[in-house]
């Protein structure tokens, strides 16, 4: 059983983010692997090292600070697990918590986990827009939407996303995000694993590595092991691919204009 932790599922779930955990279980199931999503938040007793995959979504600026205040208790375990290759995805401003600090719009400094060398500066306006671009770990381009109040990041951390369209982490650059071992973070918000079949496959591959399928599930057919009836989700991947291809085409066309 693959254990997925949707951390701060209520505090950090601003843009339909939870779909990322949901479609990951669907994709794992298509590979014949069972998985479970556990939702935990502030005040819960969490054995954070016991999970195979950790997901955190976007929150309001005030919510990110509340998230920081709580997550600090898991710092040592998290750092150790990240070094050992734990799969983590942080979308939107959630990835900011892995830097040294977040400086809020009133210039107040809030210490963060300090896993990677960067700091984030929050502003009082918003940076929004569609984005499309390459990464340093996938062949295909990714699409998404950015919606944040942060105006810049300093530090030496390598940024894995390079956009042809859309705002980078700083005014001058078109790059953003974090990647270290199996920790991936991006300013792209919402269900990015729904929008990007290549990214969903990337994480599914990571999680299925070295595991044997428990049952072969052919979605939409009747020959499912253990007599399990399954109309649920069978067509998801077709629709997902179609939506991705169309959106990619539309966004690339916008660059040419």
């Amino acid at each position, binding site marked *: 059983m693959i254990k997925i932790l949707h951390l701060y599922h209520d505090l950090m779930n*601003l843009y339909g983010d939870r779909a990322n955990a949901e479609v990951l279980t*669907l994709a794992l199931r298509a590979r014949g692997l069972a998985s479970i999503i556990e939702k935990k938040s*502030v005040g819960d007793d969490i054995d954070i090292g016991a999970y195979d995959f950790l997901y955190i979504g976007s929150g309001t600026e005030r919510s990110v600070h509340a998230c920081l205040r709580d997550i600090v208790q898991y710092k040592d375990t998290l750092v150790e697990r990240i070094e050992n290759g734990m799969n983590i995805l942080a979308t939107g401003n959630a990835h900011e918590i892995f830097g040294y600090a977040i400086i809020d719009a009133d210039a107040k400094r809030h210490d963060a986990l300090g896993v990677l060398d960067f700091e984030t500066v929050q502003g009082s306006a918003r940076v929004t827009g569609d984005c499309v671009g390459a990464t340093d770990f996938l062949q295909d381009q990714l699409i998404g939407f950015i*919606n944040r109040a942060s105006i810049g990041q300093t530090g030496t951390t390598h940024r894995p996303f390079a956009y042809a369209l859309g705002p980078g982490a700083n005014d001058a650059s078109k790059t953003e995000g974090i990647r270290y071992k199996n920790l991936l973070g991006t300013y792209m918000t919402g269900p990015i694993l729904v929008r990007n079949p290549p990214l969903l496959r990337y994480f599914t591959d990571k999680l299925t590595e070295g595991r044997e399928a428990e049952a072969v599930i052919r979605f939409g057919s009747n020959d499912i092991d253990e007599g399990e009836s399954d109309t649920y989700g069978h067509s998801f991947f077709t629709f997902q691919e179609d939506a991705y291809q169309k959106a990619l085409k539309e966004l690339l066309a916008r660059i040419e204009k």
Partner: protein
Amino acid sequence: MQVFIAIAICKILYMIGKLMGKGSSLPGKIALKIYPNVLAHLQLPEHVIAVTGSNGKTSTAELIAHALKASGKSVGWNHEGSNQIEGVATLLLRVAALSGKVKKDALVLECDERYARQIFTYIKPSALLITNLCRDQLTRNGHHEFVLDYIQRAVDEAGSETTLVLNADDPYVSTLGVQEAALENDGDGAIKLDANIIWFGACADFGTSHFEIEATPRYDDGAFCPVCKSEMKYDFRIAGNYGAFCCNSCPFKRQVPDFEVTKLDYESGMMEITGNVTSRAAQSLHATSLIKTHLVLPGLIGAYNVVAAIAAVSTTGVSAQTAASAIDGYMLKGGRTVHFLIQAREGTLLISKHENSLAYDQSLTWAVRQKKPCTLVILVNDISRKYYTSETSWLWDIDFEIANHAMVEHIVLAGRYVSELAARFALTGIDQSKIGYVADIDALRTYIEKNTSGAIYVLTCFSDKAKLLEGLGLGK
């Protein structure tokens, strides 16, 4: 002289625009260019009711304007203009004499939540109604707390003379009545509120007794206190994060409404509003203890609009009972719903704002609640009028699982974003043999005729309304 010229030009441009059937924010825009300070020179009537918030601004403003007119007042209302400063300027300069005196007994100003502060720099409302705050157009608005900060600045700009009319059930709106500094410093659990507030809300029974539909909300913006970000509890919930909230850590909690919806019959539209006779506000505003009225388009949001309108109208000295009588049976002109027939099958268009999950949830709930075998059509073609956007995360905030109901015989997903909708529906657990996919709107009518049955409920946004009606062969 500049005032005179700006007003005169605005009036002329408005006349020309009216003849050409053009929108009406341009005259105000030009007048503001000629004399940016022109609004500060107007002599306003005693009653200026400003309306802002995420949902229900237009409908609530219309109800207020109607109730004021019914009580014999002349009313200026920016119903045909934009709700940003240009639209408000167009209205004000149009109804002002060349001297700058506004010749109306009352003004009703619908204000965009992001631009209200700018409007209040010049126009100090006598009452400011804030309907609610929810996830709405996040590509533009960021998120509800970001908008809340804008509205807080608007409240500050309006000044302490303005009576706030606030949604007691909405924790975010409720923060606007709290003097935040006092809240933080006060150790004894008391909460310090601004002096002039009228609260409206709905009671527990109203929420629970009508919700036999199993809702599985996709998110909870009421889980944490908007003031201190500690966990928040609810004695009861009405919908989403509306209800009787109470912070576990700080003294922030729901205030007792001065006007409260105590009954709503979804089928007949009959509703009852109870004035809290012990509240200072309700007493001084001549609220009788029980007010009955009737909604033409019943629904949760509609009921909130009515109670909010009655609370706002009562600030003008018109009694709550008089306002309720005026609203009784009134049909909104805004065109939120359209009725039609396809092959003698009853059809209803339920306008639901794209990028607004609460609006969709309410429409889905309403459709299922009709208890008729039905076909649901969900059309998403243009999210933004300006350009294509890949931002469809809001589809994952909508509780489409509500449509997993025996009465829903068919679901038709339509428009340019059909695959995004289809991907979302693939995770609802709804039997996929019920679902049809129609990307081309022009093929929609034929598809509905050939493949579906029962009453037809169409959910889409204003931005897709014209194309939909064309696609259904119903004209524009």
